[in-house]
C-alpha cells in the first residue's frame, strides 16, 4: 500500500542519510528477520490467531521500536542469495531462511520496508500475509495485494513493477480501428450554437439534491457480505439450473473450498454463509448420484466430522465478538452429529462469552436422555455445570429426573445451575424440590426457590412461606433474604400471599419490620396490606416507634391507602402526654403533620384532614398546624 511517491522518497532517503549507528541497526534488522523466519515456519503449523504468536508480536514490536527510534524506516533488500541490509548480508543460520526468502523473490519484491508507527495488529496481519503467501504458493496469493487487503500501511515493498527505465510513449500504442480525424475534417466541424449554452447551464441545475448520510448508510449496508450473498444466490441458481454442467462443478468446488477456508481462517460469519448455501444445494439437487450433489454432501459430512471440529476449535482462540453468533450456529450444525465431542470441546474453551453462547446453541441438538445421564454423572463438576447450562435451553420433561438428582449435589455451582434448569419447568410439579430448596444453604438457590414457589398454584405453598417467616426459622435466613423473599412475593401479584409480608410489620424484630416496610414501600399500591397497616397505626406500639419506622409506615400512604390511613391517624389531633410530660408526643405529631402538610396542597383528603386537625385538635396540634411551633 506504500505510495509509489513515498517509495521514491525512501530510496532517496537511504542514499543520503549517513548511518552512524550502522552496527546497532544491523543487529536490530537481523533480529527482526530471524524472527520472521521463525514465524514463517510456525505459520505452517499454527494459525496466526494462535496465542503462540502473541509473544512474537510483542517482541517484534519492541525490536521495531528500537530501530525506529534511530531511523523512521527499517529496510531489507532481498537478493537471490540472501537478505541484505545496506549492502551487508544478513546472516541467518536457519534452514527456513531460503523458503522465507522465496516468498519475496517469487513476488518480485526487492525491498521490504517497516515504517515507523507499525501497530501490533499490523504485525499479526503481516504474519497472516506470510502464512498465506508461504503456504499457498501454488495459488494466486500475492504478497503485495495481501498487504493491501489487510490494510497494512506500515509495511511496504518495492517490487519489480515499481522499477524500470522510463520509456517514451509510442505512437503505435494509440492506433485505432477508427480512422483518425484529419485536420480538414476537424476544422470543418461546426461547434454547437452559442445560444444553447444558457439551456445547457439550466440542465445542470436539475441535478437532484444529494443526501450523503443516506447514501453512506446504504453503501455500508451493501458491503462485502451482501456481495458474497449475491454471488452465492447467483451461483446456486446457476448450479441448480444445470447441475450437470462442467463449469458448475468448478463453482460448487469453490463454494465448498471457501466454506472450509473461511472457517479455517476464523471467519465464521462468511464460512457459515457458504455452508448455508451448500445445505441449500444438498436439499434441492434431486439426483443423488449427481457429482455436484456428492461433492456437496462430502463437504457437509466433512464439516460435521470430529477432525473438522478440532480445527474449528483451534481457530476459535481469540475469536472476535462479532463472530460468536456464527461460530455458535456452526457448532450447532456440527453438533447434530458430534454433540458429545462438541460439548466436551466447548467445556475446555476459556472464553466464557463464547462458551455460553455456543452451549445455548447446542441445546437444540440435545435429544438423548442417556447423554444427559452420562454428563450429569461426570466426575468433573465443570462439565456438569456446563451441561446443566445447556439444559436451561433444552426443555424436555424427560430430563427432569437427572436435574432433580443434582439439586443436592456437593458442589454449590451445580446446585445453583440445577435450580436454574428446574426453573424452566412447571413449578407445581417440582413443589417438593422447591420446598426443600427454600432451606438450601445457597442464597441463589433459595431465591430461585421462592421465585418458583410464588408460581405454584397449590395453596400448600402458603404453609411453606409461613414456615419461612416463622420466628423459629429466622436464624436460617438473613435480612437480605427476607427482603428479597418479600419482594418476590409482593411482585407475584398474588394477594393470597400478601398477609405474610403484611404480618411482618408487627414482628418483634425491628430490623425485620423495617425490611418488610421497605419492601411494601416499593409497591405503587400497597392497599392489599391496608388492614395490617390500619391495625399498626392504632396499636399502642405505634407511639413508641422510631422516626425511620414511622416514616416508612407513612410512606405507605398512597392511592387507596390515603383516606383510611388518615382516619386512623385522627387520634393524634388530641394526643398529649401526662401532666409531668405534657409534650411527650410533640415529636411524633410534628413528624406525622410534617409528612402530611406538604402533600396537602395536592391532595384534598389530606387538606381536609389538616383542616379537621385545626378545628378539633388540641392547642399543641393547632400550633403545629399553624406553624407556630
Amino acid at each position, binding site marked *: 500500500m506504500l505510495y509509489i511517491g513515498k517509495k521514491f522518497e525512501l530510496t532517496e532517503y537511504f542514499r543520503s542519510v549517513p548511518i552512524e549507528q550502522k552496527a546497532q541497526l544491523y543487529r536490530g534488522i537481523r533480529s527482526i528477520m530471524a524472527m520472521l523466519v521463525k514465524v514463517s515456519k510456525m505459520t505452517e503449523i499454527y494459525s496466526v490467531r494462535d496465542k503462540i504468536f502473541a509473544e512474537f508480536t510483542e517482541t517484534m514490536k519492541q525490536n521495531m521500536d528500537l530501530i525506529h527510534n534511530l531511523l523512521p524506516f527499517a529496510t531489507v533488500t532481498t537478493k537471490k542469495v540472501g537478505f541484505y541490509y545496506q549492502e551487508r548480508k544478513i546472516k541467518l543460520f536457519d534452514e527456513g531462511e531460503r523458503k522465507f526468502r522465496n516468498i519475496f523473490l517469487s513476488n518480485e519484491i526487492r525491498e521490504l520496508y517497516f515504517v515507523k508507527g507499525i501497530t501490533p495488529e499490523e504485525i499479526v496481519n503481516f504474519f497472516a500475509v506470510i502464512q498465506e503467501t508461504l503456504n499457498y504458493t501454488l495459488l494466486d496469493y500475492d504478497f503485495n495485494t495481501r498487504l493491501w487487503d489487510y490494510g497494512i500501511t506500515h509495511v511496504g515493498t518495492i517490487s519489480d513493477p515499481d522499477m524500470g527505465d522510463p520509456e517514451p510513449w509510442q505512437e503505435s500504442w*494509440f492506433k485505432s480501428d477508427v480512422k483518425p480525424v484529419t485536420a480538414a475534417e476537424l*476544422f470543418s466541424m461546426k461547434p*454547437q450554437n452559442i445560444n444553447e449554452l444558457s439551456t445547457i447551464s439550466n440542465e445542470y441545475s436539475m441535478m437532484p439534491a444529494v443526501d450523503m448520510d443516506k447514501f453512506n448508510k446504504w453503501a455500508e449496508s451493501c458491503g462485502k457480505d451482501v456481495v458474497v450473498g449475491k454471488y452465492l444466490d447467483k451461483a446456486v441458481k446457476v448450479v441448480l439450473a444445470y447441475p450437470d454442467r462442467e463449469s458448475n462443478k468448478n463453482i460448487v468446488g469453490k463454494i465448498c473450498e471457501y466454506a472450509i477456508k473461511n472457517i479455517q481462517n476464523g471467519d465464521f460469519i462468511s464460512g457459515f454463509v457458504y455452508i448455508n448455501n451448500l445445505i441449500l444445494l444438498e436439499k434441492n439437487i434431486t439426483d443423488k448420484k449427481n457429482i455436484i450433489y456428492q461433492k456437496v454432501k462430502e463437504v457437509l459430512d466433512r464439516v460435521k466430522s470430529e477432525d473438522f471440529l478440532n480445527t474449528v476449535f483451534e481457530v476459535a482462540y481469540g475469536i472476535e465478538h462479532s463472530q460468536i453468533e456464527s461460530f455458535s450456529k456452526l457448532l450447532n450444525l456440527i453438533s447434530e452429529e458430534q454433540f458429545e465431542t462438541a460439548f466436551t470441546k466447548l467445556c475446555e474453551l476459556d472464553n466464557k462469552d463464547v462458551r455460553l453462547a455456543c452451549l445455548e446453541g447446542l441445546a437444540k441438538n440435545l435429544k438423548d436422555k442417556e447423554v444427559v445421564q452420562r454428563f450429569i454423572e461426570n466426575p468433573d463438576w465443570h462439565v456438569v455445570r456446563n451441561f446443566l447450562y445447556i439444559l436451561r435451553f433444552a426443555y424436555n420433561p424427560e430430563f427432569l429426573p437427572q436435574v432433580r438428582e443434582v439439586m443436592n449435589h456437593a458442589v454449590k455451582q451445580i446446585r445453583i445451575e440445577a435450580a436454574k434448569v428446574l426453573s424452566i419447568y412447571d413449578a407445581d410439579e417440582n413443589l417438593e424440590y422447591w420446598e426443600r430448596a427454600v432451606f438450601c444453604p445457597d442464597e441463589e438457590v433459595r431465591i430461585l426457590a421462592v421465585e418458583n414457589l410464588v408460581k405454584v398454584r397449590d395453596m400448600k405453598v402458603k404453609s411453606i412461606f409461613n414456615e419461612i417467616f416463622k420466628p423459629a426459622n429466622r436464624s436460617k435466613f438473613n435480612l437480605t433474604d427476607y427482603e428479597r423473599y418479600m419482594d418476590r412475593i409482593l411482585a407475584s401479584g398474588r394477594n393470597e400471599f400478601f398477609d405474610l409480608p403484611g404480618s411482618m410489620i408487627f414482628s418483634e424484630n425491628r430490623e425485620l419490620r423495617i425490611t418488610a416496610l421497605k419492601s411494601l414501600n416499593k409497591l405503587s399500591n400497597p392497599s392489599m396490606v391496608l388492614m395490617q397497616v390500619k391495625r399498626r397505626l392504632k396499636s399502642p406500639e405505634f407511639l413508641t416507634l422510631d422516626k425511620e419506622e414511622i416514616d416508612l409506615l407513612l410512606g405507605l400512604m398512597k392511592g387507596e391507602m390515603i383516606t383510611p390511613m388518615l382516619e386512623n391517624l385522627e387520634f393524634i389531633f388530641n394526643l398529649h402526654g401526662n401532666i409531668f410530660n405534657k409534650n411527650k408526643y410533640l415529636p411524633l405529631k410534628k413528624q406525622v403533620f410534617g409528612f402530611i402538610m406538604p402533600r396537602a396542597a395536592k391532595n384534598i383528603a389530606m387538606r381536609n384532614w389538616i383542616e379537621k386537625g385545626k378545628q378539633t385538635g388540641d392547642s399543641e396540634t393547632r400550633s403545629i398546624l399553624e406553624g407556630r411551633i
Partner: protein
Amino acid sequence: MDERRNRPEYDNSPKKWRYNFSKSLFTFWKNVKMYGDKNERITEEITFFKQVLDFFFAEKDELSILFDGIDIKVDKVRIRGQRQDDKYFEDIYDLFLSLCMSGITFKKGVRDDEILTLLAVMGKYPVGREPKIKAYERVKADLPPLDHIEIYPYDPEESGNLPIYTPEQSVRQIYCSLCRDYGDIRKMVDAAESIPLRMTERRVQDLISIVSNTKKIETIEFIMFLASNPSFKSSTESAFTVSNVIWSILVAKKLKIDMQSIKRIAVSSYFQYFSKDQEKGYSALSRMDEFNYDRIEAAVNSAYRINDFSEKALLEDRSASSGTLSGEILKVVSYFSAVTRKWPDNSFYRCPLMTRPQAVRSIVNLCTKGVFNKEIAEAFFSMSGIYPIGSIVKLFDGTPAVVVKRFKNFFEKSEILLLDKNLSVGERKVVTAENILDVPDSAGIVLPESTTVQILNTFLDEREINNEKSE
C-alpha cells in the same frame, strides 16, 4: 485418465502451449545431450519444438523462456505447479542455474540449425546446482553468432537496481499494462483458463495509491486524459475497460469509500465486460485459484451488467446493475465510457454516440429520471466537470482545442490545449467555459496518434521529460 488439457477446447490455450514449450525445450536438450544432434529422435523433437514456436509466432515476433532464480517464465508468464506426469521442472531449474543463464529468446524465423547449435553447446556442460558466472561465459564463447536466438546471463546477486518510477511514470506503466493484459486475459477465458488476478490487482491498487496520495492535481488530470483515450493498440475494448477502471476509482474516491472497497470496485470494472457471454464470464471469474473477494465482486458485476445504453433500455430496466455499491458506480462510469466511444455497427454495445460534455449532461438528465444513483452521479459530475478532460472543443474563432484541465462550471477559468492546422499541439490557454463550445460532430473521433502522444507528454513530470531528453 482423460486429462483436461487434452480436450478440444484447450487446443488453443496459451497456458497449455507454455507448458508444452518448457517441456519440449527440456526434452530436446536432453536428447541432444544423450544422442547427439543428428538422429531420428532429434528430427521428431525439432518438429514438435517448431510446432510449439509457431503457435506463439502466429501473434508474436519472439518467445522467451526466463529463469529468475525461483520461477520459470515462458512468454513472461510464470509456469506454476507441474503436471502429474512431468518431473522435468526441477531439471530445468538446474539446467539454467548450472549454466548461470537467465533466459533464452527465440525470434520469429529461427532456423533448425540455430536451435540445434544452441542445444548442443548447452549440452556440453554438466548440470549442477551452484551458479557460476564462468559457466555462462563458456557457453557464450562456444556459441557462434545466432541471428534468431539470444541468451542472457543470470546474476545471482542481482537486486534490482533500476530507478523507481515517478508517480506519472508509474501511471503510464499501469495504464499500458492494463490495456495490454486485457486481450491476453480474454484469450485465457476463451481457452477456459483461470484468470490471473494478482497482476491486475497490483496495478489497480497502485493506481488507487497514486490517486489517493498525489498532491499534484496534474497527475489526476493526466490520469483523466488517459481515461479519455479511445483506443489502445487498435483495441477500443481495452481502452474502454481501463477508462472504466480509472473512472470507478475517481468516483469511489470522491465518495470517500474505503480503500479495500475501491479496489474491489476497480477490479470489478476491469472484468465486467471481458466476456461477452455472461454465463461464461461468471463461470470464468468463479473458477478461482485463491480466496479473493475482488474476484467475487467481479463475478457478481459481470453477471449483472448493461450492454444496451440507450435511454429507452435504461429506463425500462432500471435494476440492470447488481444493485450493489460497485454495481451502481459501474453503471454510471460504463455508461460514460461507452457512449463516448465509436463502436462498430455489429458491436456488443448498443449505445448512442455522444461527445463528452453531452455524455455528462445525459448522466444528469438520466439521474433526474432515476436511472442513476444521484450521489454517484454527483460524484462523477464533480470529477468530470462540464467539459471532461479529453473533450474536443472550439473557441469562438473556430480553433479546435482539447480540454486538459477540469471545468467545474461555466465561470471558473481552466485550461485547454490549442491544436494547430496540422493538429499538432499548440499553446496551453486559460479560458472560462463560456468561451468554448462543444463540437457535436466530434463525438467518437480519434485524434492522430502523434497528437495524442504530444498531449500526453504535456502532462509528464519534469524529471521524466529531462530524462527522456538526455536519452
